[in-house]
């Protein structure tokens, strides 16, 4: 059923290049054609590719996804977060992050911000 579903994404590019004048429209249609020719020609290079080699290459890439740095868990007082949001014009997530990087101490955090 997937192929019966609408494909709003396809139209997205066209909307970006919102056609204003006839010239723009021409350019937009040329752009769209580029897309289709590129995707149709993508079959050609595919033939030049060794499928086995591709699978192997993919496998080699496989193990690299994981491994984000470990983050220390610091407790943060919501009142301090609110203080930073108010005083430093920060978003809440950023304020939390910033506090955490200063061991949850609002005063050191703000002092660091002033001198940064």
């Amino acid at each position: 059923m997937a192929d019966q579903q609408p494909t709003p994404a396809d139209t997205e590019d066209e909307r970006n290049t919102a056609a204003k004048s006839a010239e723009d429209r021409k350019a937009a249609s040329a752009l769209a054609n580029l897309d289709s020719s590129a995707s149709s020609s993508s079959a050609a290079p595919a033939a030049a590719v060794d499928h086995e080699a591709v699978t192997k290459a993919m496998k080699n890439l496989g193990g690299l996804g994981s491994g984000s740095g470990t983050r220390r868990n610091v407790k943060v007082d919501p009142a301090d977060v609110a203080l930073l949001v108010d005083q430093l014009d920060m978003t809440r997530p950023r304020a939390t992050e910033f506090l955490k990087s200063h061991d949850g101490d609002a005063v050191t955090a703000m002092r660091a911000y002033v001198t940064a």
Partner: protein
Amino acid sequence: MPQPLNSKEQALFRLVVRSYEDKQYKKGVKTADQILKKFPKHGDTMAMKALILNAQGRTEEAFALGKEALTADMKSHVCWHVYGLLYRAAKNFEEASKAYKFALKLEPESAQIQRDLAVLQVQMRDYPGYIQSRRAMLQARPQIRQNWTALSIAYHLDGNLTEAEKVLSAYEGTLKQTPSRLDLEHSESVMYKNSLIAEQGDYQRALDHLEDAAKYNLDRLAVMEARAEYLQKLGKNEEAAKAYRALLDRNPDHQAYYEKLTQALGISDDDVKARKAIYDEYAAKFPRCDAARRLPLDFLSGDDFEEAAESYLTLMLNKGVPSTFANLKHLYSDDFKKEVLPELAENYLESQGADASSKDKGEAAALYFLAQHYNYRLSRDLDQADEYVNKAIEKDPKSVDYNMTKARILKHRGDIKKAAEAMDYARTLDLRDRYINSKAAKYHLRNNDNDKALKTVGLFTRADTVGGPLVDLLDMQCVWFLTEDGEAYARRGNIGLALKRLQAVANIFDVWQEDQFDFHTFSLRKGQIRAYVDMIRWEDHIRDHPFYSRAALAAIEIYLDLAAKPAENGVNGEDTDEALAKKKAAKKAKKEQQRLEREAAEKQAKQDPNKASSSQTDEVKKKDDDPLGLKLAATEDPLGDAVKLLAPLLQVCPKSLEAQHAGFEVYLLRGKYILALRCLRAAIEIDPSSPKVHEQTIAFRNALNHATDLPAKVLEVLKEEFKAIEPSEDLKKVNDAFQAKHKSSPPHQLAALRVQHILGEDKPRTNKEILALLELPEIEFAHALEALELLQKWRSSETETFRKAAIVKWPQVTRLE
């Protein structure tokens, strides 16, 4: 799960999608309604209808319907995708990304949703997320080269160079045969990989790779430049020198090649003779080359300089090159060269007497050079400049260049009105020259004549644009005009239009940032990856362009005035005049708006009825509901608006003194003491002797002394980090000491006077001292204008006295009037 439909409705649904794609919105809505009649709770149809409504500019309805679609069908990836697209169109990328992710969870196989998400992530610079998306896309279609390249770029942008290189190599390893030499995508990819290796600092490997894989690369210049650079980095000087010579043979006007060649030949900076010899060699080899003759002037000194400058100047003046002065004025930072150059020009002038018939060569060129010399900031003597330019004009009364310089001299005298007239005269000498046209328009704006300016530039804008030249200038993103127009309106006190124009500039920068969206997919498709990566890096600091800071600072100043006004009105009751004037202005503006609307309506009626209907959808979207900026000027939260312009400015140009000063003022007024302190400290770091630093330091201490109920932690921070003035000090005394110390400097005196105002010193003293400013030997009319502005702002009784005294001193300065 999307709800199933009958086959008839399915067909209709596909029609809705197609209508949307073909931008036949009316038809789309109609068809969607047809389905909804039968299945009123069909989520996907509602979602599609919402998308179409949004495209028609009915954003609020679209969001409401989109939400309704979601409640009807929580499990449909279409509904979530559309919801994401709606947010994306409203530039709420955070929410859009969430919606896309949810849609993807429901339908992990959808390539479109995955692609939309990836593009959004790179736009938001969420590189880890982008890597993840790109990996998924690669997994789905590993046989397409684009997908490999894209993953490599993702790693590269995230700073993981080795991984980026590995991905490219992995793909290359899968190729059965080397692609043809004419394969542009492959050629780019090879050079991209090479730059990745070099960026890791492994130049030997980069060189080997270059000589092996890029031997027949299509981008010859890039290969040659990279090779020369690697050889030099590896210390292979002889080969590097050869490589740079090869490059110079291609392009002898590229300054960097000369410098690198000098380095590669092991010539030290002090060995001026040897350096000059290299340039001479190429000057002889390429008789038409300018760089080889001009560049030695940068490092030569004494007699050597005089000799070289004389031959260069003679050559240029003989030819009558109009840009001679512009090519040389950077040398004026050196006092010796500043003295020598005009001397040489005068000698040349004397030698010319015999053959003086030419209108733009020889004598005339020398006169023009000297006129510009005496008009230049570092060597200004406007009377002399006048003399020379008049002589030049005598030789050729119809020269655009000479007349333009005359207008410039007038501008520097402060006589803006005459300057504008002179520039406009220069324009009439060559009506087809766009440069002089723009220049004339700019001078009209400096003269606060917005209408004339618009009419002037209008001669060169597209004639058939609906809405006239201004709309065309907006479409063409003509930043200089918008900025100057805004500043002119600001000087005239038309806050609405001033903000309108300045905000338009800020919006153009938003558009430039938004424009990236198209390139995330386009560049990959075309395989132009090196240019793409450059663009991404450039976009990251796009707002450090002086055009942005100039417009932003001007707008912030207006917002600061707006924020300060109500408070001042409350203090003293003498605002009845002001209020009356304001009312009058508002009335006038309203009339103007009505007139514009009427005109627009008439135009619409006049138009061909058939044609009008087709373009109507476009027009509805484009219509500006605040053409005069009244809403902008009536803002409830001027400081909040100011912060929106300020925040990017502080982020990308923290080294700008003006930005830090403006930041301090905004944050102090908002009561954000820590942020104000941050700006103040940054300003002290940049220039501790700036008069504004003194003013703001005292203002800050004064504000802290009067501030109540600050949170304890904030107080602690302020106590620790602000020690420039202790709380116990007498601020008036500090200010008096500063004033005495900088007795002869007008900017410092003005700062001290502003502090007096802040501290509430008695007005007669301040007034007296402001009048005394005019007696300072160093004062220039720009300072007087600043002082006058201050007096007007304070509604001082001495304003007129000051103005009259200043006019006596500078009768020609138009802005004093």
